[in-house]
């Protein structure tokens, strides 16, 4: 007891703006600085503006996907259908591009729509059928994979990305700032607005804290959960569209490398995996942190095996630092 009061007293001595910062978010930003310092020791070009903008561009793809994941995690749920939602988004957008001018114009919305359909299946399962999200999203992921295998015949699809897809992923609307970064900023701003200034966002936090209480206070919790999953599916697919634009074509396993990073980015950013707590700023920090870590490992020419190991170890270590649950006993 005395520990807690002591801590409070110490906190009170700090200026207000420092007290308001979530320690998890501060730790994440601290780790980003640490990585930059380590990287700059390794190579001087690490702190150049071009390199950092390049990193932001790569981070943007993960950022878009992690935004959807964050909303779902805030509900206390999880979306494990990310890998094939990403792949479906990319592949369906490219597939639509094969249908003349109309198809080309509708490629991006069509890709996103397919992802939203996966999200809809997840949302119905979680909200209305009360199936644990971890299970139903794994199942829809398997179905999406099956559909794509049948569609492509087991090979990489031949259609390539449209000019518009390539432009939003790699073009420059504002000189020097990649379009992908602008898009991430827009989606991020929309997410911050939705989470902090709308009934939907407050309902998300309420449900994450205690769904029963949220229901009793008159929130249509099932509809909110459904919408959250649809948004998550749509954003994953949009991430896939961006990735397909970046690589100018879609691939079967393009989403596999985004599941763990998107969850890790959200959780490392201080969002509680049990739901109800977390800020978008933390997710931004988590996304940049993960991207920088990946970048440093590849600059050091670490083989895939080492990268996977370091990755797993770093995530567990950081979670042990500040992601532990409180004792329930």
């Amino acid at each position, binding site marked *: 007891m005395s520990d807690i009061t002591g801590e409070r007293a110490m906190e009170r001595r700090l200026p207000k703006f420092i007290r308001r910062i979530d320690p998890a978010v501060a730790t994440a930003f601290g780790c980003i600085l640490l990585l930059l310092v380590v990287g700059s020791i390794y190579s001087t070009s690490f702190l150049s503006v071009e390199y950092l903008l390049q990193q932001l561009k790569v981070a943007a793809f993960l950022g878009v996907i992690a935004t959807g994941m964050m909303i779902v995690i805030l509900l206390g749920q999880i979306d494990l259908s990310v890998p094939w939602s990403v792949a479906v988004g990319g592949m369906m957008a490219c597939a639509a591009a094969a249908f003349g001018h109309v198809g080309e114009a509708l490629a991006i919305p069509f890709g996103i729509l397919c992802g939203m359909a996966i999200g809809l299946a997840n949302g119905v399962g979680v909200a209305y059928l009360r199936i*644990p999200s971890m299970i139903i999203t794994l199942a829809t992921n*398997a179905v999406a994979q099956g559909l794509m295998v049948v569609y492509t015949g087991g090979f990489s699809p031949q259609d390539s990305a449209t000019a518009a897809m390539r432009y939003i992923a790699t073009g420059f609307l504002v000189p020097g700032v990649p379009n992908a970064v602008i898009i991430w900023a827009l989606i991020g701003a929309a997410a911050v607005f939705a989470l902090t200034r709308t009934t939907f966002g407050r309902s998300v936090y309420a449900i994450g804290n205690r769904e*029963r209480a949220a229901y009793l206070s008159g929130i249509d919790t099932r509809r909110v959960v459904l919408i959250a999953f649809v948004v998550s599916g749509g954003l994953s697919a949009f991430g896939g569209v961006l990735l397909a634009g970046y690589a100018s074509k879609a691939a079967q396993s393009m989403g*596999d490398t985004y599941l763990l990073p998107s969850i890790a980015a959200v959780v490392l950013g201080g969002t509680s995996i049990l739901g109800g707590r977390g800020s978008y700023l933390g997710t931004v920090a988590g996304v940049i942190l993960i991207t920088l870590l990946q970048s440093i490992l590849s600059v050091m020419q670490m*083989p895939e*095996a080492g990268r996977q190991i370091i990755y797993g170890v770093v*995530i*567990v270590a950081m979670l042990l630092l500040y992601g532990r*649950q409180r004792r329930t006993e």
Partner: protein
Amino acid sequence: MKEWRFWLAEQRQTLMAIGIFAVMFAIYVTNHPAGFTANVVQTAANKSVLLAFVAMAQTLVVITAGIDLSVGMIFILTNCLASWLVVGGAGATTLGVIAVLGSGLACGILNGLIVIYGRLQPIVATIATGAAYFGIALLLRPYPGGSVNEGLADALTGKLFGVIPASLVALAAVVLVVWVPFSRSVLGRAAYASGSSEPAAYMSGMPIRRAKFLAYALAGLLASIGGLFLTFFTYTGEAAYASGNAYTLFSIAAVVLGGVSLFGGKGSVIGAIFGAFAFRTIGDLLFVFDFDPLWQPLFQGVVLLIAVSLGAFGLFRVRNRLEWFG
């Protein structure tokens, strides 16, 4: 109520899994061109046993209301390890087998330490450790290869007395050595109790943490037995990411088909084993009916989706809407 009706009520889920499997397998063998022969049974058994081991591993953790998303990766890691170690003469092979099982157990212990004593959520923690285990597997086998003691491999994948598949005997032996003592021990009961209601188990003074820890550790061990058998079937080690993921996913499907509740506290390893058999047989049914193999992933996905949706029927029994939120 009579004694046997209690038993029936307790075992209903397991019996249902056995029933589903029996029906599926009957359809399978009657449509198989070779019919019900020892060879058909042996091939089917060998394919199913791998999933059965991984599903057993998953069951132990699911009973405690946790989940282990790294079982598939432990399975792959021990496969790669076995392709290096389980070679040479009798002595070297024995040591190799012990080393492989020991490392599987170590992986499980690490999961248990992180989840229980580190107090992290099992989903995130085991996805992360799974990545690390896969990294180690990739380190061991950057390219598919290696070998295995073929005498031992053939003995364990062949037939006993020309009829009984040896892999099934091995599976039964593992059930007797691992599951039966566990489920009858205090820790096993505590695992069920903590999955059913952790506060109640805590109030009754049950060793919750040790029980959960043991469940994770044994899950690692069982997954490594699966990895060992994979090596016996393929004679090689391969760090296949897709395969590891698929086994994790299918283990959950098998557990659900086998009547083990994902909310914990209900079901048995026996049910999960038959769930695994049924799931494999469903996949093989497509071949018997001459479908394009391309449809297999979709078909398995749809079966999985239906299997997990069946749990939703419990909603019809809900009288008070607040029970939705468990």
